[in-house]
């Protein structure tokens, strides 16, 4: 059990980074990590010792985040083409723009992209963590990347996006 505790502690920095990228602000991220750790502890008996602890914890965080979004969906509006910047940003990959663009992606696409790009998870592990089919992982990944690329280039996204005011 001591070992489990140390392994859980070792996952904390990654959980925080993912939460920060997912929620877009530090205060919400810290709350989400706190809730994840608490639920993880409470259910540690359900974790199989041969399983991937990190993926298991990310799964818990995913479920908590979805619950939060359902309880209090952020104020949103349909994104209109006219709302998009007319000219492309001067820097091709300005980090501040990237974060803003990331938060404009639907949560489902953002999650997949972050698990792949930030966590460098295998696609199969992403599917298991989010409890969705592998094909859905690949299509969300593709859409997330293309939407992000278009947003960064000041072009209309391929699909209708939700914009958080």
């Amino acid at each position, binding site marked *: *059990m*001591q070992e*489990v*505790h*140390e392994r859980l*502690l*070792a996952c*904390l*920095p*990654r959980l*925080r*980074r993912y939460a*920060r*990228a997912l929620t877009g*602000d*530090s*205060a919400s991220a*810290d709350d989400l*990590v*706190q809730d994840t*750790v*608490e*639920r993880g*502890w*409470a*259910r*540690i*008996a*359900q974790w199989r010792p041969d399983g991937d602890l990190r993926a298991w914890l990310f799964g818990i965080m995913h479920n908590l985040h979805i619950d939060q979004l359902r309880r209090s969906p952020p104020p949103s509006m349909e994104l209109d083409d006219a709302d998009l910047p007319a000219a492309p940003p001067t820097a*091709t*990959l300005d*980090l501040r723009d*990237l*974060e803003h663009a*990331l938060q404009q992606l639907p949560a489902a696409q953002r999650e997949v*992209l*972050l698990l*792949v*790009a*930030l966590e*460098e998870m*295998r*696609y199969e592990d992403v599917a298991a963590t989010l409890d969705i089919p592998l*094909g859905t992982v*690949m*299509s969300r*990944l*593709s859409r997330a*990347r*293309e939407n*992000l*690329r278009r947003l960064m280039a000041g072009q209309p996204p391929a699909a209708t996006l939700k914009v958080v005011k």
Partner: protein
Amino acid sequence: MNEAELQAWVDGRLPPDRQAAVDRYLAENPAEAARLQAYREQNAALLALFDDTLDAPVPDALAARRPDAPSAGPTGGAAVPAWRRMAAMLAVAIGAGVIGGAAGWTLRGTGTDAGAGLAAGAAAQSPAALPRQAAIAHAVYTPEVKHPVEVGADQQQHLVAWLSKRLGKQLRPPQLAKQGYELVGGRLLPGDSGPVAQFMYADASGQRLTLYVSSGQKQNRDTGFRFAQEGNVGVFYWIDGSFGYALSAAVGKKELSQIANAVYEQLLPN
């Protein structure tokens, strides 16, 4: 060429033969090559964007999270025995300072004795425990060069909102510019009776002082101003309702008392 394979190329997850096939395809399709190259740049940019989050010290409140915390919520019946055993293991590990040492972030660069005392919060529920814990927390965090605080004063609004929420009280870090000290930032610490907020200040010479705000003081009885000397750290402290305040710095008693008076006045309810 199917899209899933192209995505896997971006992440470098194709077997060598497929990798070569996609390379050939991209050599003949500049538009596709540009698109996938942009995706690769996204990966690198996302890592760069959130890199600092990964390196940031984990809040002690998270690292010291114990399964018997009251807010842990209901658990299934089957989970309870393992849960209890782990609680006992954790208590032992924390007491021995193992967690701080092994994890390497809670008490970086400090002696194990100080760490064990702080993490265990083992001091008794007497008013004297407050200055001791405050002095230990002061000694542990003021020497930090890279991460003296979890949230810097540049994010003061976030810092105050976050710590206020965790302590269940609207906090206002005092302004000590007149005394020559500027707010550096703050952090959340585990206390034996609830979370603790630590605000850190520094003067122009780098001299640091900390204000330790502890919730859940059981005496629930106000005290006057008191002074304690813990090694070279002087501590002025007082209890106001269920909150304990302690101002610590390695400066003379007279200078510290002047600052403590300013802090006390600013913390008085309007």
